[in-house]
């Protein structure tokens, strides 16, 4: 029973990873790619790690290690994405021409 729940989490995680990388290929510019890839790949990897923690048993040594790894991924990955998007906007990479709202550009002009 517990193993089936773990298998379900792992399947959800792998599907999210695959769809995030598909978004990395298909979308038009850097900001869209970043928004598609980072969120869904972070969620997918956290789901895989939680499934692995359930498979080892949550309070065994492997489960604790997987939970610590979830903590690191969920802290570091959005921080890296934020730094990357702000850095690429600051160094002057343009948005896609279909994008409508650019509030950081307005804030820079003030």
């Amino acid at each position, binding site marked *: 029973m517990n193993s089936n729940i*773990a298998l379900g989490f792992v399947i959800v995680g792998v599907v999210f990873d695959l769809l995030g990388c598909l978004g990395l290929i298909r979308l038009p510019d850097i900001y869209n790619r970043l928004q598609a890839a980072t969120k869904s790949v972070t969620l997918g990897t956290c789901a895989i790690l939680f499934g692995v923690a359930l498979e080892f048993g949550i309070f065994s040594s*492997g489960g604790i290690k997987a939970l610590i790894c979830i903590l690191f991924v969920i802290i570091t990955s959005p921080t890296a994405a934020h730094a990357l998007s702000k850095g690429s906007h600051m160094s002057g990479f343009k948005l896609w021409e279909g994008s409508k709202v650019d509030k950081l550009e307005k804030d820079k002009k003030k």
Partner: protein
Amino acid sequence: MFTFFFVLMIIASFMCLYRVMVGPTPPDRMVAIDILGILVVGMCALYAAYTKKGFYLYIAISWAILSFVGTLALVKFLEGRGFDE
């Protein structure tokens, strides 16, 4: 079952490598490298569950931290700043 998971993760990794090769601007390549690091964390976790050995999760933890530090260093290079600012 695990073979199927590994095949799907390797397909996702090759999508990232495609973006590293043909990405028109430098930040595209940086995003792809960042995502590839997180995918490697997931693959280490899957391999730990496949072999029932817990120490592959140590590799996953250290890979998550090192991928984060590497991405921040690339962003500082992108903004044109030095490493000690």
